[in-house]
């Protein structure tokens, strides 16, 4: 009987060795070690042995079973490893190929510049106000100290809707709406689309501006300069310097145009700044007391400054855009280049 057991064990080991896959291996295991397996049969045969031999035989059977179980596990692990290796090598892909296409969205450069300026000036307390694009004459002109038949009206070529309504020529009317409706002191930013009836290679009849206004008890040109330096250093680079040039806007007095050192060449001179090292950015000044009067704000008690700049121009400087038509063609090859 001992011999039979030894033969059976050898046979099982031989069969385990021949197994091609884990399923087959398992079936062999069941065949020998399962409930109905060969070893169970032998255990039944044990009843025929004399009583005193049974424990010894039982012990031997268990030893053999354990031996087979262990051999099985080893064999199983071995097969598993082979199968995994085969699976892995069969799943090889060429990752230099592209994946399924997806689209990425993105903002228009005009929106990017507006949002950046808003973000910068929000930090120092400015909040956004909006206004209508079809504006009453009063808000676009008269309240801003540009009375009818005043030569200052020539500064802006105006689209008229009817005798008392225009397409706003600047975002300054938002200053008037705000001064009429809100408590002082205040700091606002007014971005938006504006219209002028001139169009050439560098002017579009519909473009974007952003204006900032601060009204407080004591406001100086130095405050204005400091604020503009803060804005431009954050928008372009901390190396930026700002200069003021005297100018004329009916709604500010004193008025200035402001330039900054060219962000491209750092003031050395390049094509963008026409070799001057300086780039014209926008207009600014202290709010003309007549504008405050027009909105029933006491010009002796309150003072303020305002500044405005063209968004397209900022985008041109920042991104090196060569043609203003690109802003409104909405060519996907243009828009897809903006990564944020």
């Amino acid at each position, binding site marked *: 009987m001992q011999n039979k057991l030894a033969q059976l064990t050898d046979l099982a080991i031989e069969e385990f060795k021949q197994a091609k896959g884990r399923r087959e291996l398992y079936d062999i295991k069941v065949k020998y070690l399962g409930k109905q397996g060969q070893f169970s049969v032998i255990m039944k045969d044990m009843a025929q042995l004399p009583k005193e031999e049974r424990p010894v035989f039982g012990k031997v059977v268990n030893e053999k079973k354990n031996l087979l179980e262990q051999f099985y596990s080893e064999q199983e692990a071995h097969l598993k490893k082979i199968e995994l290796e085969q699976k892995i090598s069969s799943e090889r892909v060429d990752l230099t190929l592209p994946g*399924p296409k997806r689209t990425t969205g993105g903002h228009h450069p005009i929106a990017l510049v507006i949002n950046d300026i808003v973000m910068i000036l*929000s930090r120092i*307390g400015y909040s956004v106000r*909006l206004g209508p694009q079809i504006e009453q004459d009063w808000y676009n002109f008269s309240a801003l100290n540009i009375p009818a038949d005043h030569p200052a009206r020539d500064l802006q070529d105006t689209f008229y809707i009817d005798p008392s309504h225009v397409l706003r020529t600047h975002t300054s009317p938002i200053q008037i709406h705000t001064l009429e409706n809100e408590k002082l002191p205040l700091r606002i930013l007014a971005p938006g689309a504006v219209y002028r009836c001139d169009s050439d290679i560098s002017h579009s009849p519909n473009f974007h501006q952003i204006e900032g206004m601060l009204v407080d008890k004591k406001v100086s040109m130095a405050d204005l300069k400091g604020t503009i330096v*803060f804005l431009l250093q954050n928008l372009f680079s901390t190396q930026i310097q700002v200069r003021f040039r005297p100018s*004329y806007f009916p709604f500010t007095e*004193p008025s200035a145009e402001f330039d900054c050192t060219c962000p491209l060449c750092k003031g050395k001179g390049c094509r963008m700044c026409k070799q001057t090292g300086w780039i014209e950015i926008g207009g600014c000044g202290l709010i003309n007391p007549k504008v405050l009067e027009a909105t029933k704000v006491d010009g002796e008690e309150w003072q303020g400054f305002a500044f405005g700049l063209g968004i397209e121009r900022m985008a041109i400087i920042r991104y090196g855009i060569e043609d203003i038509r690109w802003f409104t063609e909405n060519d*996907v*090859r243009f828009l*897809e280049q903006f990564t944020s």
Partner: protein
Amino acid sequence: MKISLKWLQDFVDVSDFLTQPQVLADRLTQVGLEVESIHDLSRDLNQVVIGKIVELEKHPQSERLTVCKVDVAQGPLRQIVCGATNHRSGDFVVVALPGAVLPQNFAIKESKIREVESQGMLCSESELGLKETSEGILILPPQVTLGQSFATYAALDDVVFEINVTPNRADCLSHFGLAREVGCLLGRPVQKLSPKLKLSNRQIKDKLSLQVKAPKSCPRYAGRGVFGIKVGPSPQWLKQRLAAMDINSINNVVDVTNYVMMELGQPLHAFDLNFLSQGKIVVEAATANEEFISLDGSSLNLSETDLTIRDGHRAIALAGVVGGKNSGVQENTVQLFIESAHFVAEGVRRTARRLGVQTDSSYRFSRGTDPELVTLALNRACELIQQLAGGDISSDFYDEYPNKLPQSTINIYLSYVSERLGYRVLSEEFESWMNRLGCEVTVCERINDSNSTSSSLAKDVHYKICPPVYRWDLQHKSDLVEEFGRLKGYHEIPEHFPALQQMPTPHTTDFILENLLAEAVTAAGYRQAINYGFTSDSFQREILGEVQDFSSSGLTVSPSAVTLQNPMSEDLNVMRVSLLPGLVKNLLHNCRHNNEFGRLFEIGSVFKKSEDSSYTQNLRLGLIAWGHLTGLWTQNNKTYPLVFDLKEALSIVLNKLNLRNVLWQTPKVVPQLFHPTQTAALFCEGRQIGLVGSLHPEKAEQYKIRPGVALSEIDFASLMRGQPRLVKIQSHGKFPSVERDMTLLVPVELAMGEVLKELKKTAGTLLQRMDVVDLFTGEGVPSGFRAITCKYFLQDNQATLDETKILSIHNSLIQTLQTKFKIQLK
């Protein structure tokens, strides 16, 4: 405004800047008179000198050419080959030496012309840029200096500035005016004109009566007679000065009036006295619809708001704008009435703009002239006319100036100037600049520190300041702050960071919401587009079709667009009523450039006129998608209508906005732009807010668009109602969810959305979600039906669901399908 430095030199010494004009230009720009360009006339005539032909021979190889030996005073004789025929030996000529670069970049070099050396060129007037065309070379009169620079000889050694004079600085629209500014700036004396008139004993008042009936529009009117003149060409110096201003020479009289305008800034007009038949000059308003023929022959239709100069019954000039054809100076004119007047700026501007007649005169009057210069300019003109055209000047003259224009007085404290500029201003410096500007400065009070008596350390000074009349722009103390600030230099202004003492307010809601929506749409893979707010009326109509069709979709589209009174072109003549025409235009642009795939959105305003005739603008969201996503992994996919792609993008947007109660329904009316059977109305929380659909196949064909196109427009206010919405987080449950599916046979004309809506209602609160996972037709599916597989998930947050509960829900779903829709399971 063009300014000739040599002319400026008549009034203020700028000779040191002739060789370095950029220095003066920079100074002017720094004080607000921006020099836009500098034209150095002599630069074109460098190496161009006066020479004398001392020998002249025929060219050995050519009949047409001559070989000249020319003396140019310096160096040996120059041998020059010349093709002209009008020159002889002994003539004085203009020689361009090698190295000269004549106008139009014509560089002169030593060369061989038909094997004969030529060391320069003899110039014609056209080659020198003096005339458009000319015959032969320029022969100079014999009284010239050999070897002299031609620029010096011809007084072309001038520099002309083009200055951008801002509307407040009308006082700088003349050489005298700018000289005043330069004098102030550089601290140099300014020469004043004092015309010397040889008066005759003739009287203008005998010939002509004057009546100013509109003193409000014409506060000052002056005039003088000149008799027995001879109209003829102007001398060279006058022609040259006018040419530098881009003014054509006409005759000696008209040229003088233009010259004085450019010199003093006062426009003048010369009438031929013989045409003033009634012996009257009346300044009064035109009659309505009166016809007036201007000097250049154009017919103008006047109104009662236009001021005219009349000779009794007819208009002879449009005041300050243009003279009449009926009374202007002609070749045979012998006696003149010279007008010099002050017309009110607003009136001249209104007339000039309404009639579209812009002249140098109306430009100056519109910006404001100096009433105190009226008689000076008049006398200056008479002086020059007498010099150039002879004649007798009337001993008397008219000068109607009943009410002197008021001069403003400004009260200002020195501390105000310091506070507004942001640095400490010294009283001496302030007073000095005010004086240099021509202001009368009166110190009302010096407020001293208690422990100091020195005037320079005064704590504050109270001034009364009277600006000169020609600086009518200086009316308020803030104007004086600017004057001091710019003259002292804006570079003096320090940088100071204003303290924030108030609590910032939130951004206006629409700005926050626009950004919120833009973020959501970009997350769905769309690129932001920005189009003009105005568009072409015809294109807009063509794209939108019957606009009433939009009104049932929650988008009120105005049937008549807001129209521009003065459009630049027909391409941009109305305000947009929808974002779709702009986006279609972008599509066409992209397709033309073979961009066959694109996803664009725009958030922008559309415009309409309200019933109360005010204008309103409403924000919209527009989307357009064209071209399927194709590539390695999708190439064999069946192509689905692109509108589903757009619909899914919108679903992402709606999800990001936390909008759950959303329905897509077949619209009652489909606008003509959209595909009639591939368009859905979007309902959100029970309200219709927009449309999603494919482009109508006819439009695709009309515009030759190859890729599939889907479009959408949604009302911004309806979409963003109650935004930004706070998200309330639901528990995701700790008990397992179970998954079931069923395949339905749905008739093709029945919208699956309706079925899903009912099924979700029936399933109740235990339903987590229900998805459509498969759709097929064909084998095994009866015709007229679609087999649609739905998968749904049930979960109870309180307990594990038992099989009977699940079965009862499944059965109730089947029940609903059968009773409501007569739908069988497959």
